[in-house]
């Protein structure tokens, strides 16, 4: 019998390569004859492009091509996962700081850099839309050309979409106490340590494109569309991303690289600087106004939410972010009356895209803080007010969607216990607690191919991307566990659309549940084949054969896989092949095209100390508890959860992109934009989980990986308020803000 692999924590598959430097990230891959590419952009957020003079650049030795919009098919193709609004390269106007207006391909990176500096741009800086208020100003310029959405009544505004969700009747609901406030969440950037990088190369009558992309099949579709090629002629190589966090979800400069490869007939390679990576993707900024009603006993009567969400110059996946986050804006609670109005506002800024948490942290900052405010007014404990409003397992809390699928009170109590909630506090300290809820995928199509080789080892082919979450490891564990073979005899192949079957995306903490189910089913299919085929050898009927953990049991005797394969496949050799799939079709009746597969629920609790002299926050104890159903690899779950928590501390305490009056990012790069370092770790950190095996994934698993940052800000903000009496509604909670708040507090303002 082989070892049981579920619930164990074997070492990361691919870990050896990562500690020896052998792991090839995109920028480490070398192709013969590759041209280096550099981009040219204007020095402001919004400009009319008058002339792009490439004559001097073209004279730089080694330059092969300088490409502008004029060199592309006209009109210049546009792309995007939901709206086809983004041109391959800027046309007529530059709409965000960093949007390329020219691209240089040269024999060396030095030559490309020099030539990029020689491209002469004549442009006129135009008034830009750089804030939520700018976007709502009727006199502001339109970010998007109205002809891109001719039938949309909002086409002559900077509002891309107005979304309304809700139930009950907020106007008629009676509340004993009403609290109302406005909360802001700034733009922040992904800052994956691997900057964005792309390659493309002609491939006969097709093309090959390399990108550390989380969703290779979406990229394949988009490249096929812009080049007017069949999918079969577009091959995407997606090496493991060096951190994705949503930023590497959707195509950016891959279409540009594809055109450059075809124009030059050579492989082309673009590695962005960290500064350029900041300019390529970000989290949307929100201003959320919430009016909430409560009964004296703490029951929520209503939430009336108005969220203004500043997206970028092109839609990318931002409309979906606004939609999904708004839909769950009331959080994991029983809310009898809800009115949620959200506006997705276009601006002349870096396109906002998916970012771990997918819009939920922005909403939970506001709505969870409201619960704390109500608790204070009503004299109810902050844990207690949450317990009173949490739905029980099986209870519907978002009408028409999946009922509550976990023991969420257990997560809340566990987090509270981890920070000794209720015990006396030392001077200058405070505690906070908050819950976060995120819906996962609402539709999906994930397929795998599982091959059992002649020697009993297995190869799994899957379209999931492993960006650190450990999908290779977990899928290997499922195959090893189900087939009863050693983990070392399972290989997982990813990242090549010509080889692996289709997968919608690696997003929404979905892969363990959705792709994991496909893997599990492929194992069952393989076992069914073996049962069928082994029946003869064992002189038994198919029904009498049992395949269990590497052994084929018949009524008169047993066979090992190896013996069976040798016998059945014979001297010609060969293999058994199984396909597994998990498909959830779109339901158009549902506002999100389908109910969620599961809820990702997490509770965060913190105990902080505030230095009243400096406004610095010291986090003494920090706990996150995720409802993971079943941790297939507990160490990986803890790493993901703890990592998300640290990222959440980043946007809570220190991160924000700052624009100047011309829409330029002022704190571009690692020196001026701070993310948590090892010294920012809480003194004590607990990454915990509850496991009730009540998820829809294999062995009762649910997805995880995002939960840990859903509720960081409201938990820390609440703790700071308890410690100081100062309530801050704008993130991040910088020492300056807290210090200023303390001064105002002392003066009684």
């Amino acid at each position, binding site marked *: 019998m082989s070892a049981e692999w579920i619930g164990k924590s074997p070492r990361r598959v691919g870990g050896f390569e990562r*500690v020896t430097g052998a792991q090839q990230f995109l920028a480490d891959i070398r192709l013969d004859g590759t041209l280096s590419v550099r981009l040219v952009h204007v020095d402001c957020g919004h400009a009319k492009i008058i002339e792009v003079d490439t004559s001097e650049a073209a004279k730089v030795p080694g330059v092969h091509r300088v490409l502008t919009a004029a060199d592309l098919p006209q009109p210049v193709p546009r792309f995007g996962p939901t709206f086809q609004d983004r041109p391959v390269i800027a046309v007529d106007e530059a709409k965000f700081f960093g949007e390329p207006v020219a691209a240089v391909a040269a024999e060396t990176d030095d030559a490309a850099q020099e030539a990029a500096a020689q491209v002469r741009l004549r442009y006129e800086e135009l008034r830009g839309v750089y804030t939520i208020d700018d976007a709502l100003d009727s006199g502001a310029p339109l970010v998007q050309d109205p002809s891109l959405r001719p039938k949309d009544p909002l086409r002559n505004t900077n509002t891309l979409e107005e979304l309304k969700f809700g139930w009950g009747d907020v106007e008629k609901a009676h509340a004993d106490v009403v609290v109302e406030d406005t909360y802001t969440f700034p733009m922040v950037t992904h800052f994956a340590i691997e900057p964005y990088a792309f390659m493309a190369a002609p491939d006969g009558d097709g093309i090959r494109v390399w990108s550390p992309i989380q969703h290779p099949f979406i990229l394949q579709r988009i490249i096929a569309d812009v080049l007017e090629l069949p999918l079969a002629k577009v091959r995407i190589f997606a090496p493991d991303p060096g951190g994705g966090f949503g930023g590497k979800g959707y195509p950016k400069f891959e279409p540009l690289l594809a055109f450059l490869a075809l124009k030059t007939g050579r492989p082309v390679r673009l590695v962005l600087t960290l500064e350029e990576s900041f300019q390529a993707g970000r989290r949307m900024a929100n201003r959320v106004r919430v009016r909430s009603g409560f009964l004296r006993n703490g029951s929520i009567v209503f939430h009336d939410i108005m969220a203004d969400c500043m997206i970028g110059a092109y839609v990318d996946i931002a409309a979906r972010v606004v939609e999904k986050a708004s839909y769950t804006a009331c959080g994991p609670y029983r809310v009898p009356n809800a009115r949620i109005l959200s506006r997705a506002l276009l601006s002349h800024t870096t396109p906002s895209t998916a970012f771990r948490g997918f819009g939920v942290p922005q909403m939970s900052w506001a709505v969870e803080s409201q619960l704390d405010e109500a608790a204070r007014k009503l004299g109810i404990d902050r844990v207690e007010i949450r317990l009173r409003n949490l739905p029980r397992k099986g209870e519907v809390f978002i009408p028409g969607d999946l009922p509550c699928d976990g023991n969420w009170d257990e997560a809340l109590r566990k987090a509270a216990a981890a920070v000794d909630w209720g015990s006396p506090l030392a001077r200058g300290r405070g505690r906070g607690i908050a819950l976060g809820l995120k819906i996962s995928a609402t539709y999906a199509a994930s397929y795998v191919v599982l091959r059992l080789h002649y020697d009993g080892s297995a190869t799994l082919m899957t379209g999931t991307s492993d960006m*650190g979450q450990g999908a290779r490891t977990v899928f290997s564990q499922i195959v090893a566990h189900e087939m009863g073979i050693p983990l070392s005899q399972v290989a997982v192949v990813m990242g090549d659309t010509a080889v692996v079957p289709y997968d919608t995306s690696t997003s929404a903490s979905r892969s363990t549940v959705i792709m994991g189910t496909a893997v599990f089913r492929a194992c069952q299919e393989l076992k069914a084949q073996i049962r069928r085929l082994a029946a003869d050898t064992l002189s038994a009927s198919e029904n009498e054969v049992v395949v269990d953990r590497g052994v084929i049991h018949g009524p008169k005797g047993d066979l090992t896989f190896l013996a069976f394969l040798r016998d059945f496949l014979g001297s010609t050799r060969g293999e058994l092949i199984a396909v597994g799939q998990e498909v959830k079709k779109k339901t158009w009746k549902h506002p999100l095209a389908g109910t969620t597969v599961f809820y990702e629920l997490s509770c965060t609790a913190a105990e902080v100390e505030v230095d009243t002299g400096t406004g610095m926050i010291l986090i003494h104890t920090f706990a996150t508890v995720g409802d993971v159903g079943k941790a297939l690899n507990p160490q990986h779950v803890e790493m993901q959860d*703890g990592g998300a928590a640290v990222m959440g501390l980043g946007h809570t305490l220190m991160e924000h992109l700052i624009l100047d009056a011309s829409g330029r990012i002022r704190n571009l790069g690692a020196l001026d934009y701070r993310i948590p370092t*090892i010294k920012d*770790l809480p003194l004590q950190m607990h990454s915990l989980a509850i496991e009730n095996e009540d998820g829809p994934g294999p062995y009762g698993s649910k997805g995880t990986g995002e939960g840990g940052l859903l509720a960081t800000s409201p938990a820390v903000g609440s703790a700071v308020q308890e410690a100081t009496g100062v309530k801050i509604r704008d993130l991040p909670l910088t020492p300056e803000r807290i210090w200023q708040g303390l001064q105002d507090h002392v003066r009684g303002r």
Partner: protein
Amino acid sequence: MPARTVSVTMTVNGRVRTLEVQPHHTLLQCLREQLELTGTKECCSMGECGACTVIVDGRSVNSCLMLAAEADGCTVTTIEGLAQDGRLNALQESFLEAGAVQCGFCIPGMVMAAQDLLNHNPHPTVEQIKEGLAGNLCRCGGYARIIEAVHAASRGKME
């Protein structure tokens, strides 16, 4: 006009290498592009993230801040130089065992910075580990387990 190159001799991972480098190229560029030692990573290019950390003459440096020409006569150890004959060293083992590796992009620099710390201080305290790795960013946020890994390696548990 093409820049005049500079002749540089350095010992990289135990091997003496002589090569012509561009005067403006960094040690990082030289390692990655000329010596094809791509284990050393590039991220911020301004000495803030630590992804490009290597050990030069017994001290950890950000190879993006050192010119290749300055490495003339130096002994350089990169991530590729730690494992011997495919056998991981104690620190590398410890990183894997402790679950300190997620996406892995920061890990070569992180391991080199930690190795440098242990070379100078075989039994660091948690505070000293934090100080030693303060210049290495991990966006996966795996710091807690990285500390654990360095601590475990320092206790010699992983051998």
